[in-house]
């Protein structure tokens, strides 16, 4: 985990430590200059990070139309839980996350392991892998939306048509819509994971491979007993980050389907967006945001606790 080292490493400038502190000595000792350096950070984080987090907690207990604001207790939470769409959104988001995990987790790892073995083409492979990541998500989503066209002009339907299959409905089909969006989202983001794993693979000490080799371990066993354990830390973190990220998926379903057909791709973030920016019900939207954040927090805590036990045993 990241912990900043804020212990003073250098002695305080002579003369500032002993004397009783007055505003004048504080300014003379450079206190004001220091504060000025902190000002951009304090102002921006105060206004756009810390205050909104506090305000969320307040907002979830209020009902506001910008003219009258009243305290409504847990009413917002009750209205969230009573919404029949909540179950749909939770189910869709969970399915989305699970499919994204099944496709999006092993593929980058295996790809990175293979690419690390390449010599002359490794640089080319890295560039190709990272190419989709630099494309703006909106552009990638809109491009894939034309690939998924349900008529014969869609790219996937054309290719499958050569084999005599289809045409398929893709984004218009309740059963196919989530897997289709997951494939696009995975395409757009898997390059980051490959590059991170590649960087981690380069730090594995070569003696480990050498001693495994001396012990007679073949390629598969070297991967299983050296590579995987050495990557365990980064794999565990990446898995958690992927879980947290996909639970908050918004852009892809919003642009591709806006939650359709018949709410079959309605995710939790889309529901929050609808509450807040379609219905103007900010209290209800904040209540759902808090519930989602709470669920993610519990998930992370349980995950970190479980994997810590697992790694020490």
């Amino acid at each position: 985990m990241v912990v900043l080292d804020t212990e003073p490493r250098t002695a305080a400038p002579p003369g500032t430590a002993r004397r009783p502190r007055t505003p004048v000595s504080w300014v003379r000792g450079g206190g004001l200059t220091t504060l000025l350096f902190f000002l951009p950070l304090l102002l921006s984080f105060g206004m756009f990070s810390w205050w909104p987090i506090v305000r969320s907690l307040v907002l979830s207990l209020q009902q506001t139309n910008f003219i009258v604001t009243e305290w409504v207790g847990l009413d917002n939470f009750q209205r969230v839980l009573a919404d029949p769409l909540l179950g749909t959104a939770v189910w869709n988001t969970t399915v989305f996350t699970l499919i994204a995990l099944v496709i999006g987790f092993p593929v980058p790892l295996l790809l990175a392991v293979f690419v690390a073995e390449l010599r002359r083409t490794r640089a080319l492979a890295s560039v190709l892998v990272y190419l989709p990541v630099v494309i703006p998500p909106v552009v990638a989503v809109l491009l894939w939306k034309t690939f998924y066209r349900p008529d014969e002009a869609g790219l996937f339907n054309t290719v499958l048509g050569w084999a005599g299959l289809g045409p398929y409905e893709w984004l218009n089909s309740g059963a196919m819509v989530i897997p289709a969006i997951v494939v696009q989202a995975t395409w757009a983001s898997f390059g980051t994971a490959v590059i991170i794993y590649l960087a981690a693979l380069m730090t594995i000490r070569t003696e480990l491979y050498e001693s495994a080799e001396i012990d007679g371990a073949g390629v598969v066993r070297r991967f299983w007993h050296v590579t995987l354990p050495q990557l365990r830390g980064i794999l565990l973190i990446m898995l958690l980050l992927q879980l947290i990220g996909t639970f908050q998926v918004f852009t892809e379903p919003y642009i591709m389907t806006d939650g359709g057909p018949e709410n079959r791709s309605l995710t939790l973030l889309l529901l929050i967006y609808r509450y807040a920016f379609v219905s103007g019900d900010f209290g209800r939207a904040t209540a759902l945001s808090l519930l989602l954040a709470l669920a993610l927090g519990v998930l992370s805590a349980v995950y970190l606790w479980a994997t810590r036990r697992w790694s020490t045993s």
Partner: protein
Amino acid sequence: MTTTGVRALDTERSILSGMDRRVPRVRVAVTVVGALIVLALGVACAGPLFWLFKAATSTSSETLADPFGFWPSGIHWENLTEAWTSVRFGTYLLNTLIVCAGTWFFGLLIALTGGYGIAILRPAYARVVSAAVLATLFIPGVISLVALYLTVIDLPVLNVNLLNTFWGVWLPAATNAFNVLLVSRFLQSIPPALFDAARIDGAGAVRIFWSLVLPLSRPIIGVVSLLTVIGAYKDFLWPLLVLPDPDLQPISVALPRIESSTDLGVFMAALLISVVLPVLLFLGFQRQFLRAAGSAGAIKE
């Protein structure tokens, strides 16, 4: 072969050793698998971009009739000019660049001054501030989306509405804990003796920042710049909320809006124009991009 040569070979090794690679069977297998991987990556990652280029320079009816046809009636560059003029794509691209530039400036300002304060100046409150900044990294962004929107449309104390201003995009996007973390970690890795020596020579906090920290920070400024500019170029949800005025919208917000009302060929041309800049930037600064992505991973650990 010299000993250093042997060692260089050894440090190069991964799962396969240099010895393995001399076995003909292994060599063939590695070459074949390597070629297959590069081929598959080429099709999967560069293929869609190539198709986009083809669709952007073909007429809509050609693309609809045969998506894989190679320019049956020649290359139609007019789609690109059409997208630039009739869809006002130039305006959207300019807005995107304004969003990127402002986010970059304020992002660097906050990260550099804040990182300097946390890592070098270290007043008594530095510990609390850095903990509070770090904490936001662990809080899911969704928690404050709505509250941030309500804050931006009516800033506390100042009572200013930033809706339909670039400030509304710049400032929240520049408030990035990850950048502060990157800079302060980088500055902590510089030997403190350097700053002590400058202090003994009588340099004040401003002087040290300007003529010591800034020049030394060039590598991390590059990383933060890349991450910030690309992030701002890609951002969608936040500008969608804060910039409802079409004249101010960046491409990411404008594209989905004009999709249904635009001719397919022209729309593909608009998509193509949107990817040219980031793709060229990436191809020009490959190493920096990949190192930034890799170092982002190192910090997550």
